[in-house]
């Protein structure tokens, strides 16, 4: 297996080549304005080392913040027609009702609500009003809308109304990009619908971006399929990522945690990713980041995305250091480190200057920081260690000492011994952990729905079957599938042994 992992970050685009479980080469190129150039540059710089010559590459896996930035920065968004199947329920809270006004004004092309949807137990709530769907589609067409988000009550249990409505809309607007909320998973109509509407708003950007990525790969001479990494540390084939770009929102942090797992060989550990300004602490379970269960806001919109549960603190390689009284961070010089740090001729004392003074790092001019004595350096490192210990303790979910993997450019701040930690592991290529994480990403499938009148074992097994099928549809090899999450929750107030089951499986990318 030979894969290229690329992480398009705010400052650098990192690329790594992984061959038979080993990082062969890692390169960095500045991230470009148009994204494509940065990827092309990093692939060419990888190629110029000769490691790609005459080799078959199984996949190029790209992690990007492109889609989430479009939402946060309110640019390159498509106007969307929202079609909700659930009348007469939910009428007082129409689609877009909890969006920030500025974002809604850009995205809301129109709202149509018609009868349809299901009950929690799969009974129809109301029959689907097909004539009203067709009428809505004709109005969308007249308004020039070609991106449509469809949602229905309890569609994760029974997506048939959403699917039928999608067919009807496609008959009226054949070129429409249609997102069904049931493809995005969870119970919670507003949050699921919001995810669907955001997805529909990214339709044009996703098409252009994925085409640009494919072009960059082709231009670089690499002949390999493109995969896009997702929030949960897995990848989607280019076609699926184009259809469901919201799943690729937050892949950066996930990739660095997955990369840490890979580089260290540990699948259950804490991970501390120390960047220039912030440090993220998370927990690996079975090689994947533990997910946040709560509502995640993206650009001010409530959604229920699969996102890693991370604690961020203001500690990094560029953190300001104040000696009396001692204070490290949260302010940072960020990417201006090479200008403003004392070791580089600037005037701001940073954690990097301390590391240079104590000989931990060989950067800049050590003479410029000669006035920092060993006791001062120890004190600053001690404070950084204390901050890390506190964050780790807050994120740990079990008593006792656990191993900790330290990655990221600022990992020098993490000492070999920390309270609550059995062992601190620094890894080679740790500064490119996110590109490594992209390169090793797997494919996942998830099922989250309510089962009624089944034994617990039967419900779990039914959910498992659905999750497996979804993983295979997303490009996984069936033989490699393993379950990494299985959770069942009996439901209050509902009769008949209703249980909500969530199962997630992952597998290796099936050979093309």
């Amino acid at each position: 297996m030979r894969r290229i992992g690329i992480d398009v970050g705010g400052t650098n685009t990192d690329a790594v080549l992984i061959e038979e479980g080993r990082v062969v080469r890692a390169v960095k190129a500045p991230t470009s304005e148009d994204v494509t150039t940065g990827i092309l540059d990093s692939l060419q710089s990888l190629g110029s080392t000769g490691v790609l010559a005459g080799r078959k590459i199984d996949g190029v896996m790209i992690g990007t913040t492109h889609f989430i930035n479009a939402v946060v920065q309110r640019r390159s968004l498509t106007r969307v027609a929202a079609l909700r199947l659930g009348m007469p329920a939910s009428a007082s809270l129409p689609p877009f009702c909890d969006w920030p006004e500025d974002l809604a004004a850009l995205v809301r092309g129109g709202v149509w609500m018609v009868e349809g949807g299901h009950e929690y137990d799969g009974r129809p709530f109301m029959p689907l009003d097909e004539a009203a769907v067709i009428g809505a589609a004709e109005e969308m067409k007249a308004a020039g809308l070609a991106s449509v988000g469809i949602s229905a009550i309890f569609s994760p249990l029974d997506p048939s109304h959403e699917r039928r409505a999608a067919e009807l809309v496609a008959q009226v607007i054949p070129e429409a990009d249609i997102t069904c909320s049931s493809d995005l998973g969870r119970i919670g109509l507003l949050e699921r619908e919001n995810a669907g509407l955001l997805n529909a708003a990214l339709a044009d950007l996703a098409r252009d971006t994925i085409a640009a990525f494919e072009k960059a790969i082709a231009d670089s001479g690499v002949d390999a399929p493109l995969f896009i990494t997702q929030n949960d540390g897995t990848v989607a084939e280019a076609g699926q990522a184009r259809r469901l770009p919201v799943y690729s929102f937050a892949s950066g942090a996930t990739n660095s945690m997955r990369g840490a797992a890979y580089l260290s060989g540990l699948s259950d550990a804490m991970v501390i990713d120390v960047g220039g300004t912030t440090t993220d602490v998370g927990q690996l379970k079975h090689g994947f980041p533990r997910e946040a269960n709560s509502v995640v806001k993206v650009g001010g919109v409530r959604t229920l995305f699969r996102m890693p549960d991370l604690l961020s603190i203001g500690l990094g390689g560029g953190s300001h250091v104040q000696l009396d009284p001692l204070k490290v961070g949260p302010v940072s010089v960020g990417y201006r480190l090479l200008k403003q740090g004392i070791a580089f001729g600037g005037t701001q004392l940073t954690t990097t200057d301390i590391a240079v003074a104590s000989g931990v790092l060989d950067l800049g001019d050590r003479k410029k920081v000669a006035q920092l004595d060993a006791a001062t350096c120890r004190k600053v490192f001690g404070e950084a260690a204390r901050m890390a210990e506190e964050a780790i303790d807050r994120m740990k979910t079990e008593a006792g000492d656990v191993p900790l993997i330290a990655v990221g450019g600022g990992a020098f701040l993490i000492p070999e011994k920390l309270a609550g930690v059995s062992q601190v592991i620094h890894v080679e290529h740790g500064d490119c952990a996110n590109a490594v994480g992209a390169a090793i990403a797997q494919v996942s499938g998830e099922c989250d729905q309510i089962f009624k009148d089944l034994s617990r074992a039967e419900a779990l097994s039914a959910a498992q079957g659905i999750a497996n099928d979804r993983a295979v549809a997303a490009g996984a090899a069936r033989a490699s599938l393993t379950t990494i999450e299985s959770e069942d929750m009996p439901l209050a107030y509902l009769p008949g042994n209703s249980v909500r089951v969530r199962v997630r499986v992952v597998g290796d990318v099936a050979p093309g």
Partner: protein
Amino acid sequence: MTRRELSLDDIESLAVGAWVLGTGGGGNPYLPLLNMRLLYKQGHRVELMEASDLADDDWVGTVANMGAPLVGQERLTDSLTLARAVTVMERHIGQRFAALMSMEIGGANGVRPFMAAAHLELPVVDSDTMGRAYPELQMTSVAVGGLAGDPVSLVDVRGFESIVHKVPSWKWAERIGRKIVTEYGSVAATCQPPRTGAEVKRWGIHGTTTKAIAIGAAVREAQRRHDDPVEAILSVEPGKLLYKGKAVDVARRATEGFLRGIARFDGLDEFKGSQLTINFQNEWIVAWRDGAPLAMTPDLICVLDSVSGEAVGSETIRYGQRVTVIALPPTPIFLTPKGLEHVGPRAFGYDLDFRSVFSA
């Protein structure tokens, strides 16, 4: 007669405070809050009045949703349906209500009367019948007071209308009502047994909407200033800090239509090395520290997110979540022998004599 128009900011605070008073249950008030934001945008306004300003022969409608919070997350809460539960009841008893009130201030039902009130242009009495959230209809101050448990109106957004006309007890109202709710798809807007002004004055738990607004305002202000939100709650309420820790295990099972289970926590900060377990039946019922009972119903056990100060529900609490647990004092009505019979630890199957954390 003094009435106070609530600002939208008051209602934002009410949603946060009501969720704290939900003591783990009652459903998150987010969707009712969204409804109120839209109603205010459309020009609707709601007014709060004191129970003491009611005439003895006024009629007061008690508004609440019954059902599974999960179904509400899909069907969403609809304000016109709540208003219809009230008008159906008015038609049934042949009386007009002078005001509305909450059945339970805790959770989403703490905000719902205002959704009906906005359409019906009725004031809402600053009183409720639980002072918190509880899972069953007989767990109210009016049931403790021996007032009638019927009639109850139950309506559905598709147009269903039912009345539980005559039942011998509150427990029967709960049983029959629950059956109807299940057939509706496990959610219904209800108007609980109508009360006279005299009954509300005698048996209502007073000032609870104001209390919820004050708690919510304290939390929101602390969030803005990056102060400790839990301390902020304790500065406006005579509560007691019980514990700080993180959730290490949550075992849930659904029995007889309720979510029962146990949440376990490991101590943090000054509580390091100490373990807390809390039994729940939708709401947090009994908390044990290192095996000994620490707090129990009817004292309010509030589990709060340590960072945001917002309440954490028994349905959504998750592994690893960092929480602070506080107790708030209950209404004196529940501290009488009759009160404890309805809502004390034995009413939930725990063979414990009630001991308040506030009596020590």
